[in-house]
């Protein structure tokens, strides 16, 4: 299953507690966990360096087969191992706090013997600071503790063998017999003493965690097609919500490669303004109102630091610095460099303003009001768009070559100015400059329709005057730049399917982007195609494409950023918020198209 110590990306499932996320492979190994928060350095980083990244393994000692599922309507993972001697079930969760006396963060692994007898081995090998520090090992009152700087982890084991410490970490072996239950709890601390949990409390917190997820999901309001897939997507998105601030990050990992062995490895543990409208609409559509409100207000507060300009991304705590650096890890299957931070933070991307104003419009359209300060700020952003839309930028795909007049960026500038006019009409933002916004919006549209459409290609092209195509222009009907059945966008859909299609999948674009190598098909674009087809009235085609895409989810319903069309291998960071947002949006659009 593993290649050079690396599991396929599709072999992972994610568990989380609203503060951090652990990735667990099919073979029971926790290969990724950052502590204490999603954007902190990793303690388990075998995902990016199988040799020295650190892990928490738990698996039978004899050959086995495993199957997994999330417990229904939860983010709690259940893995069943079957061997010649019997079967055993492992339930994994990052336990949710109870406002009581629990560890700072707590990873709970419950092991239950189902049949016969299975010998299991576990090994805790933390490597603090992205693999840099194995920590100092000690035994405190019989409990193994490993610490480095202000971080520490302790392992409590019940009926799971006697912990033995060696130079690599702590390990144990035990026999799980039918009807027997064992428990492993990883208690962690940051800048405070460790809390060693008792067994009863840890078991109860695991049960409470399952109950919380069931309750949270029961309050969601989706009743359309592909309900299981949509609910799994929303649960995946909930894992990406950083509860202390309300920010929603793009993915919980860094540097999973867009091409194996290549340099397209980025840190996605930030919140992108680009995802704002999608996020807000998806969460509100599905009844996750609290998360939608938190994210909306977090975004407005975070962007205050750079007002009226928007930054491409913000840190989870709202900070606006994310300097990019490389760290000395081997990289997933030798894909280097491994990056921390994201250089895109300093890029100019004009589409952001459209994304934010569309999000504000969605918020208002759902019956919410803006306060006067926020309204004034939104109006100032619209004023800024009037002055900057003529400039070239690096576009939604954050290319690393020279700025260009990207079509999708210009379309989103139109969206920004048009939504500003609509918000002013509703009295939500000051309307003193409406005439200017409308005039500039018309000028942007004129630019797009005359400079960014190719009569020869019969399609909107990637950038003004070019002849390459770009799947991001499929967002035009989705972000309401134009109607779904607009002749030009329908022609563009056909052209994109011809030139960027890889089976039912789409590549993002053709042409230069300032980086070496190719990449896989982009899953969010593939779902945007489904939605664009649905909005164009080609519902049958859209359903077929949707079914094909959904069949390529991994065994627990999660998607990465990209896929290799011929092999189905996942590429890029995982699980990817934008892919799941696009899935939810496509399902909702198809539901509406079918109802119409």
């Amino acid at each position, binding site marked *: 299953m593993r290649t050079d110590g690396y599991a396929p990306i599709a072999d992972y499932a994610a568990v989380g507690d609203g503060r951090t996320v652990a990735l667990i492979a099919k073979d029971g190994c926790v290969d990724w966990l950052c502590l204490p928060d999603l954007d902190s350095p990793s303690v388990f980083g075998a995902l990016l360096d199988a040799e020295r990244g650190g892990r928490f393994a738990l698996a039978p000692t004899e050959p086995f087969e495993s199957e997994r599922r999330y417990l229904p309507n939860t983010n709690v993972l259940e893995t069943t191992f079957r061997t010649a001697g019997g079967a055993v079930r492992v339930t994994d969760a990052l336990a949710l706090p109870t406002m009581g006396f629990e560890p700072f963060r707590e990873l709970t692994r419950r092991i239950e013997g189902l049949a016969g007898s299975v010998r299991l081995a576990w090994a805790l090998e933390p490597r603090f600071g992205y693999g840099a520090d194995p920590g100092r090992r*000690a035994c405190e009152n019989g409990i193994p503790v490993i610490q480095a700087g*202000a971080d520490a982890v302790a392992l409590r084991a019940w009926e799971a063998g006697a912990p033995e410490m060696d130079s690599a970490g702590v390990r144990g072996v035990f026999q799980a017999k039918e009807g027997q239950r064992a428990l492993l709890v990883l208690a962690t601390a940051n800048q405070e*003493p460790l809390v*060693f949990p008792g067994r009863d409390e840890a078991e109860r917190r695991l049960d409470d965690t399952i109950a919380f997820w069931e309750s949270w999901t029961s309050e969601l309001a989706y009743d359309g097609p592909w309900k299981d897939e949509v609910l799994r997507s929303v649960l995946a998105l909930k894992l990406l919500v950083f509860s202390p601030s309300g920010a929603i990050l793009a993915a919980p990992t860094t540097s999973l490669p867009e091409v194996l062995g290549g340099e397209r490895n980025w840190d996605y543990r930030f919140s992108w303004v680009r995802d704002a409208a999608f996020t807000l609409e998806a969460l509100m559509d599905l009844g996750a109102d609290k998360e939608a409100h938190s994210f909306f207000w977090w975004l407005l507060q975070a962007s205050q630091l750079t007002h009226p300009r928007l930054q491409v991304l913000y840190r989870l705590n709202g900070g606006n610095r994310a300097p990019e650096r490389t760290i000395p890890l081997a990289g997933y299957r030798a894909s280097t460099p491994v990056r921390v931070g994201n250089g895109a933070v300093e890029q100019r991307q004009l589409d952001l303003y459209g994304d934010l104003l569309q999000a504000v419009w969605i918020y208002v359209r759902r019956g919410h009001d803006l306060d006067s300060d926020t309204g004034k700020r939104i109006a100032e952003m619209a004023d800024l768009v009037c002055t900057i839309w003529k400039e070239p930028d690096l576009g939604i795909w954050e290319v690393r070559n020279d700025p260009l007049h990207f079509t999708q960026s210009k379309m989103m500038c139109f969206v920004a100015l048009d939504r500003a006019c609509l918000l002013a009409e509703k009295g939500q933002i000051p309307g003193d400059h409406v005439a200017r916004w409308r005039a500039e919006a018309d000028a942007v549209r004129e630019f797009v329709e005359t400079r960014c459409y190719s009569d020869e290609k019969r399609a909107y092209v990637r950038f003004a005057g070019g002849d390459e195509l770009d799947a991001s222009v499929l967002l035009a009907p989705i972000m309401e730049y134009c109607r779904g059945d607009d002749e030009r966008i329908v022609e563009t859909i056909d052209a994109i399917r011809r030139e960027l299609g890889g089976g039912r999948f789409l590549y993002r674009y053709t042409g230069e982007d300032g980086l070496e190598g190719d990449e896989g098909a982009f899953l969010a674009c593939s779902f945007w195609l489904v939605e664009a087809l649905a909005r164009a009235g080609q519902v049958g085609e859209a359903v077929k494409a949707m079914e094909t895409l959904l069949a390529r989810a991994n065994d627990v319903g999660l998607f990465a950023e990209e896929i290799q069309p011929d092999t189905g291998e996942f590429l890029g960071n995982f699980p990817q918020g934008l892919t799941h947002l696009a899935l939810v949006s496509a399902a909702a659009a198809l539901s509406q198209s079918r109802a119409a």
Partner: protein
Amino acid sequence: MIWGAIVGGICGTLVLTTALRAGSELRVTRIDIPFLLGTALTENRVRAKALGYVLHFVFGIGFALAYYVIFRAIGEDGWWLGGVFGLVHGLFSSSVLVNVLLPVVHPRMANPRSAAGSNPLLEAPGFLMLNYGRSTPVVTIAAHIAYGAIVGGFVSLAS
């Protein structure tokens, strides 16, 4: 004057708490005295920290009054003598007070006789509080010397 000791105790505790917090932010120690004190009274983490800060300041004033009594008894005071008291206080705190006595009275802290029972246990500090990081004794004792010097200085000023 006793008021000098009280004001010195407040200012000294402020500096001591800030120094320990800075050590934590610099990632050289996991010591968190308000958390240790507060969790003796409540399981709720948030309430524990708030209560812990109050308790720490109360203890800070209490120790300053003890310093004052000793200053009066020996007929001498000053920042340097306070600093010496702080050094002794820091050594005593980390080797006996927090290491030996706190685990005995703290209802949620492990001690050498603790079995792996069902109650969650707070990590014990160990000798010189080394369990909370190798640099913990240095940070703690330096902070206590600063505390003592401030108390001694204020008592001297008020005399």
